[in-house]
């Protein structure tokens, strides 16, 4: 019986790690690609060649990625905490 508990814990850990790894990969790629591409695209198509506004756009997009990362990490923490409390409530019954 305890072997099944250990196996379920391991698969849950592996699933959580895989999920976290994918999130980290997505954010790393976003931080590498989005600011510099937003600089060039906004310079050519939005600001009509004005490089200063394009640089502000690139810096702003990097800040937006940071805000998205903070939101995602806080939400994941809240979800994990509610799951732990739900399993605790089930066990106590």
């Amino acid at each position, binding site marked *: 019986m305890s072997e099944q508990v250990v196996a379920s814990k391991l698969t849950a850990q592996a699933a959580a790690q895989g999920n*976290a790894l994918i*999130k*980290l990969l997505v*954010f790393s790629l976003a*931080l590498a690609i989005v*600011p*510099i591409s937003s*600089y060039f695209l906004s310079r050519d198509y939005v600001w009509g060649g004005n*490089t*200063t506004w*394009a*640089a*502000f756009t*690139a*810096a702003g997009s*990097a*800040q937006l*990625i*940071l805000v998205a*990362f*903070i939101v995602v*990490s*806080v939400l*994941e*923490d809240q979800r*994990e905490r509610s799951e732990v409390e739900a399993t605790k409530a089930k066990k106590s019954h």
Partner: protein
Amino acid sequence: MSACPPYAPFFGLGGVAASMVLSTVGAAFGTSKAGIGIAGLGQFKPELIMKSLIPVVMSGIIAVYGLVVSVLIAGALRPTDYSLYAGFVHLGAGLACGFTGLAAGYAIGYVGDSCVRAYVYESKVFVTMVLILIFGEVLGLYGLIVALIMNSRATEAPSCM
């Protein structure tokens, strides 16, 4: 003494290099110092790792500031018809962004390391950590703004004969 000597691009290229190199040094210091704290935190509370990666992301953004200023200055460089004034402006812009990125990365590294270690014991440290990291991040942002303002003055350069 002409306004557009042939060695003028030296200063402009120095600004490009300074912006990228110095802000990357700051970002590397911030990443590594915060990473030491996260490795310590991960041994005791692995579920807190995702939230404690915020200093690392902020250090990455410091490097993005340096990259943006480098690309911006490099786009304005020319082999001829490039005045010494424009070279000095670009050098100043690159140095401004680079050194402020160095300072910001230094701050983010120490704050990230200490605060993620404290986060193991007290969860209310998280909001404080994000606030202090934001104040450290805006140091690099001020350097970026000053570099952009300086770079916009480079187009006032005198025309070459």
